[in-house]
């Protein structure tokens, strides 16, 4: 009965599709071309500011008053060398890199431990514990940086790598993502490990980690980008210029341009340098990154 009712509908659909294909091939092609044009246009619009920055970073003075002036100049090596060496950007970038790397490794280790305990241990008050970790989502740096500043200053950590890494090491987001992922690993595998008498450390190293490679890469990129782009906290806790990170270093460079000591081409060179590491990671690891984000939302 059902088949009889559905049959004409299916037939109708097929004829419709045929007529559409026969009558409107040109329209479809036009639409596709239009789609590409729209996409190229919007993508160009989004990339335009960075293209300008890239071009300006190669010019001598960086004064570009009309679109016609937007042609690369010949001062690439000179500009980038000046920024990296004379304006300490090499130093700032290194500090940022160190900070981001320590945060990624530390967060990853701490979060793997915590997520393992939460998923694979029979514990009392487990939900409460998980809630305790999740609740820290309510406490981003901006709502606590004043007391945090006092605390970290009291500990004597001002201007140290400890100050810009340790407070970041507990990560509700990462524990959450890893927990979700661990829960998706078939319990049969877990039970096999138990039957084989595998200890917790071996279980993490030889069962969990190999099964989580993609997700670990994904969350690492998220953490690196997050750490690299931190601005407010380094701004308040680091006041020795040599210990500063690239983000705040950029603001210092801008101060110099307002003071007339630097040209805009140098500021744009610094901007390009600061953009490069997170951008490269995003392009290289976009697939695991996207997968990690999908889990985060659940």
């Amino acid at each position, binding site marked *: 009965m059902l088949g009889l009712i559905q049959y004409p509908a299916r037939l109708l*659909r097929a004829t*419709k*599709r045929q007529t559409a294909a026969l009558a409107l091939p040109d329209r479809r092609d036009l639409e*596709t071309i239009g*789609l*590409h044009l729209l*996409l190229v246009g*919007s*993508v160009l619009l*989004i990339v335009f*500011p*960075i293209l300008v*920055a890239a071009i*300006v970073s190669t010019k001598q003075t*960086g004064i570009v*008053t009309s679109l016609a002036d*937007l042609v690369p100049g010949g001062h690439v090596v000179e500009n980038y060398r000046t920024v990296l060496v004379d304006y300490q950007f090499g130093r700032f970038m290194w500090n940022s890199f160190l900070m981001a790397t320590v945060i990624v490794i530390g967060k990853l280790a*701490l*979060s793997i*431990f*915590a997520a393992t*305990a939460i*998923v*694979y*241990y*029979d*514990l009392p008050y487990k939900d409460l514990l998980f809630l305790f970790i999740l609740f*820290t989502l*309510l*406490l981003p*740096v*901006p*709502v*606590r940086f*004043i*007391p*945090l500043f006092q*605390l970290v200053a009291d500990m004597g950590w001002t201007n140290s790598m400890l100050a810009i890494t*340790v407070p970041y*090491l*507990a990560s509700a987001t990462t524990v959450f993502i890893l927990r979700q992922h661990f829960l998706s690993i078939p319990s049969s595998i*877990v039970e096999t490990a138990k039957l084989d008498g595998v200890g*917790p450390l071996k*279980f993490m190293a030889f069962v969990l980690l190999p099964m989580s490679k993609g997700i670990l890469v994904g969350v690492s990129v998220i953490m690196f980008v997050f750490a*690299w782009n931190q*601005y*407010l906290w380094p701004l308040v806790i680091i006041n020795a210029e040599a210990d500063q990170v690239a*983000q705040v270093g*950029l*603001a210092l460079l801008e101060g110099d341009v307002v003071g007339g000591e630097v040209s805009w081409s140098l500021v*744009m060179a610094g*901007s390009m340098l*600061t*953009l490069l590491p*997170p951008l490269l*990671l*995003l*392009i290289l690891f*976009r697939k695991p990154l996207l997968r990690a*984000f999908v889990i985060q939302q659940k």
Partner: protein
Amino acid sequence: MSSREIYTDRRTAGLLLLPTILVSLVFLYYPAARAARRALYSSQLGLDDEFVGFENFAELLTSGGYRSRLLLTVGFAAVVVAGVMAVALLLTFLVHEVGTGKSIYLVAAIWPYALPPAVAALVFIFLVHPTLGVLSGPLATLGVDLDWFADGRQAFVVVTVAAIWKQIGYNVIFMIASMNNIPETLTETARLDGVGRLRRLLWVYVPIMTPTLFFLVILNTIYAFFGTFAFIDIMTGGGPSGATNILIFDLYQEAFDFFNWGLASAKSVVLFAVVGVLMYVQFRLTDKYSHYGA
């Protein structure tokens, strides 16, 4: 007991959890508690604390300046959230619809996720600098006289556009995942019924994507409230005459320019309440719409 809970040794479990709990307690919970306590004291840097109860909060509530900054921040957040989501939705849809070159277009659409706010701010200053900007000339021929170092309304617009630009990539990342999850049969049916692309986006896709869109509204609001500090600090310093002085920048100034730690702590408690309410709303909405199965 679930079959995954294969270990029972509580000491090992405690050791595994200890680092996360310790860092959370010392650097997250303790400072937050300290801010809550400090908010009840009239404390300036170097001076003795004096308990004043809710005086700091009363001062904030009755201060016309603080109220107008609160309104400004809400307005700023509304424009940023609406702007970024409209742009990202259209962009995501274009990427979703295109056949060839999809992955290249996708990267070109999500890359601003990696963009540091400080870089976005500086590039934008240069782009629309009133005298040196690349776009100032072309905009002048269109009749827009750029003067945002002095004109508050223009400064607000420039900061908003820069903040939206930086957040596009993050939104596309979530929207494309959600859009790719929409069953092909729905798209096919809409197409056969002669539903145009734009109407398919608005009347078929958007309703299905509701959970993701709600999630993004909350995340974008938090971004507008807190993640935009670098834009304000680098581009306008809260000015001209307070036109871009959103709460997070106001808080920073209270603490590190005026050293009113008590009042500043009260302000961070207010911001904490904002995050709390937003998270709660997100939690409830996720609960409510989870049956859609995002």
